[in-house]
């Protein structure tokens, strides 16, 4: 069974501080991992995916297969980063099955 765990429901940091949102997963195979973000009054949207290996809005996430983690990091948090963040997992190929989401972490960046 596939499972995604986000251990922190709430996370609060000051502007300019580093931030790390934790995500651990369990999956028997090679999953694809995603981070989604939901800003206030906006729809839930893709932030980044591990296969892209890109930085979006200063955020990066590295897939660590040994630790089965996909933590989201940003070296200097901004107030506009305040949002709800979801980590998600999907299998690969036409038999991938449904995506599985974590419970989400609400990030608050204080001025």
């Amino acid at each position, binding site marked *: 069974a596939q499972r995604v765990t986000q251990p922190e429901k709430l996370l609060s940091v000051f502007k300019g501080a580093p931030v790390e949102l934790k995500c651990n997963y369990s999956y028997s195979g090679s999953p694809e991992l995603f981070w989604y973000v939901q800003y206030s009054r906006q729809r839930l949207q*893709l932030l980044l995916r591990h296969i892209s290996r890109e930085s979006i809005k200063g955020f990066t996430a590295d897939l660590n297969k040994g630790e089965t983690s996909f933590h989201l990091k940003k070296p200097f948090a901004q107030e506009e980063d305040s949002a*709800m963040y979801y980590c998600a997992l999907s299998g690969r190929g*036409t038999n991938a099955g*449904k995506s599985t989401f974590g419970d989400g972490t609400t990030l608050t960046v204080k001025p």
Partner: protein
Amino acid sequence: GAGVSQSPSNKVTEKGKDVELRCDPISGHTALYWYRQSLGQGLEFLIYFQGNSAPDKSGLPSDRFSAERTGGSVSTLTIQRTQQEDSAVYLCASSSIPGQGASPLHFGNGTRLTVT
């Protein structure tokens, strides 16, 4: 192109009434999901459609909830005999055929359901 469209955006109903929520996925997307998001809470998976396969209904909270997807496109989520605890934002998402890799989900704006 057009994104995932949900209607109505808001629905207020009396306890005991039935409601229907509609989702128009992105054209060509074969996978469709329904989620529920209560105030301040995370996503609660409800149901998943993929192509012509039998839907995964494992997340439906009770037999008052049902969903169908006609012609592999539009989906309707029906809640019968609504209860106050059904009040939430109902989100629909779609994704394309994974192919070589997984495809991200595209979400609609949701339907905010309030049961009075």
